[in-house]
């Protein structure tokens, strides 16, 4: 569409091109920043390994003691996981906000995080694995199972005719409360140690990342991104109200259903592997929208990039704040996320 004949460049076309250029350069800058954060994340950890050692471990596969394993099997998947999870949450938030046209919607509004939390509680407190997995995978498995339950419930709900966006949000909030209260019942019968473990799970942590887990998250993210990207123009049209969108040929309820399915799948995977990490899904799309607007061709990748960027930054900070100790990443994201969010409220107060 953009590469039409160059000879009749009108003033508008020039303006459009410069706008696109600006956006592309913005995305490139952010991408470069993300790469820098990624490199920092590989080189900083609870044990101190020199840069030379890290490079040797990475490229020559040799090093003292367990250094190769530390760099390749611990730090590398964790650093990549931070980016993948951040991107997944960013995209999830961006699309949910788009199709529901609600600025405070995020994957969590639909009850996905509280379902994951309940699944973890079933594993931690009742020592029960719904999918009959071995003990080490029981909690992730349970969390994933219940997030899928919620996703399916929302999808089936949205299949009905004449279901508007408000109804979907209300249904999500109802599910949210349902699972929170179920978790509370479990908490009542839990002992102190179980409570503490559950709390820790809820903080979110990248420490348990393995290559397998990363590849699962990455595969889901990649497939979902492609599907969403194919629908980029339709999604952009969805920012208009339903009637207008329909008038330019977008099947509003079909797109809404598809996107709900995809975003809840993305967030389910993200949340069940690392625990509930707050605010990324809310903040990343807002910043992206402020800088590039609603055009999904840029809005979506930028939300993903920003999500990855914020989570990588939080991960880096979580390793730096207390040397030798890795703080739960959810704590750090909330602490740096809340002021971000407040800033957005202040700057957008007039239009709300």
């Amino acid at each position, binding site marked *: 569409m953009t590469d039409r004949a160059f000879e009749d460049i009108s003033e508008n076309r020039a303006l459009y091109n410069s706008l696109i250029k600006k956006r592309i350069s913005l995305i490139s800058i952010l991408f470069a920043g993300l790469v820098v954060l990624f490199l920092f994340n590989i080189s900083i950890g609870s044990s101190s390994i020199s840069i030379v050692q890290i490079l040797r471990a990475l490229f020559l596969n040799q090093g003292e003691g367990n250094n190769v394993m530390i760099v390749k099997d611990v730090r590398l998947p964790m650093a990549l996981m931070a980016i993948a999870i951040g991107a997944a949450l960013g995209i999830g938030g961006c699309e949910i906000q788009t199709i529901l046209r609600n600025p405070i919607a995020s994957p969590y509004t639909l009850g996905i995080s509280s379902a994951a939390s309940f699944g973890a509680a079933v594993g931690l407190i009742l020592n029960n694995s719904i999918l009959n997995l071995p003990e080490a995978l029981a909690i992730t498995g349970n969390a994933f199972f219940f997030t899928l339950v919620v996703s399916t419930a929302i999808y089936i709900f949205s299949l009905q005719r004449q279901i508007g966006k408000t109804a979907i949000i209300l249904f999500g909030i109802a599910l949210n409360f349902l699972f929170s209260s179920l978790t509370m019942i479990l908490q009542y019968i839990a002992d102190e140690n179980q409570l*503490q473990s559950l709390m820790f799970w809820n903080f979110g*942590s990248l420490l348990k990342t393995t290559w397998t887990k990363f590849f699962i998250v990455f595969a889901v993210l990649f497939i979902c991104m492609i599907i969403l990207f194919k629908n980029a123009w339709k999604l952009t049209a969805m920012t208009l109200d339903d009637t207008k969108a329909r008038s330019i040929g977008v099947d509003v309820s079909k797109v809404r259903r598809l996107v709900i399915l995809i975003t809840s799948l993305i967030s389910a995977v993200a949340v069940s592997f690392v625990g509930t990490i707050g605010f990324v899904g809310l903040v990343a799309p807002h910043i992206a929208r402020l800088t590039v607007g609603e055009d999904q061709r840029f809005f979506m990748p930028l939300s993903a990039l920003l999500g990855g960027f914020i989570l990588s930054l939080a991960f880096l900070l979580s390793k730096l704040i*207390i040397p030798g100790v*890795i703080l739960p990443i959810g704590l750090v994201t909330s602490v*740096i996320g809340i002021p971000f969010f407040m*800033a957005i409220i202040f700057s957008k107060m007039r239009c709300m």
Partner: protein
Amino acid sequence: MKSSKKLFALVSLVLVIVLALCGCEQEEQTQIPVNEGANEDADKSFAGTYEGSAEGYSGGVPVTVELNEDGSIVNIKVGDNQETDGIGNIAEEKITRSIIDSQSLNVDAVSGATVTGDAIIEAVANALVSAGVGTDSFNYVPAARLEEAVVEINPEAMPEKKEITETIIIRDAKGREVEIGLPISSYAISTMDVIDYIVPLKGEEAFHMLVGSGQDGGHGLNKYAKLYTPIVGNYMEHVGQISDHNAPFDLEMILAMQPDVLIANSAMAAHRYALEIEDQLTQAGIKIVLIDVPGKSLKNSAQDTMTILGQLFQKEERAAEVNEFIDQQYELIASKISKEALIAPTVYYEKSGYADIFGSTATSKSGWGLVVDIAGGKNIADDLLLDTAASGGGGNTLDPEYVLNADPDFIVVSGINDGWLDSVSEKRDCKFDIINRNGWSNLKAVKNNDLYEFAHSTSRSIYAFYPSLKLAAILYPEEFEGINPEAVLDEFFERFTLVDKSISTWFNSLEMCEGAKQ
């Protein structure tokens, strides 16, 4: 665009705050290099007064040191400070006197006021350095502070790997069969208290072989460091923190420290966290051994653990010796209270209760309920909670009315004035706010001063026989006449540990904290 400027300003503000917070964490502590300021210029006269100060329990402790010409300490004055009155004042007097008498900074701390004591010593050392005398001739050893006890890892100090001469298969507490090459040269533990089971086997070497430990809610890593560094040397320079309190293990740290074996106790979900990383650890040649104390049976779990560790550390005879001692204590209790004619007194147990906060209790099947059961008490929570699924037969909070109605003969609490390893921190006045609850002043137990507290973590420690014996002696004074639980505890410390029982306040009673009663 205006709005994005505003946004940018706010974001940078946030970043500044975050960075400032990071900065606070790493603020340079004033450390005095031990060998600095040596007396090079012999002709110089040091006569005069010098000032120094150091961080104490609450705020700074300033001192003024008076020196004579040859640099000996003539007088020490401790300035205004906020340290606890009473014990703090005693510490000031005692320590300053012994520094002057011995002309040495290597003096014994006053028990219960180690923090204040160390602060005075550090402040004097400061003053000596500023005087140019230096601390060389005064045998100054900087005390490890609680908050900074976790020191930088020194790769040189790591225990040397020994050659493996045999392999054995150990059956651990979960019935897993673990193949381990012996002798092991280093190990890591899930929380510091596990080392109490290893010290009886290996003595000081237990610390030299330790390369990693998890943190616990009571800052165990720091407390043990504070307690044992003076005895066994700076072992913390080869110990990495491998997990936070009740958190998953830090795989990277374990891999970096390369222990031969990771010993994980069941407390704080460490079993699950350990098994989660089993694959990676096996790949790196690190074995996992699970132990379970207090487990389901308090009477045997410590001994089972000792047996496993005895095999692991090739000290089976020594382990048997410890087990025999512990067995004897439980047999003693059982023999005294087995008589049919005895009517069991009723006991109510509560954890960390205050007047307004109702703590959880425990039935005869879990935690401190096990101790009450062994000591022959009739637990009032059993009737209500033992069979309910909600509590899993374990702990829960009882209806306050039920407790009043049951009017127990004895009340046992834990975790209120917790005295576990309190010799390394400042002792607080003990308080039992719990008796100010509505109606509690009329309870039999409160009227008769029959309210007792034990240090909470002892029930899962190797010393669990002590609260069992002590409580039995309280519940059945006649049967246990002539038996001194403290002496038994002393004997255990004497025979099997590196310290003595003064490390903790094991026991408090309402009578001992008379101030709590109005």
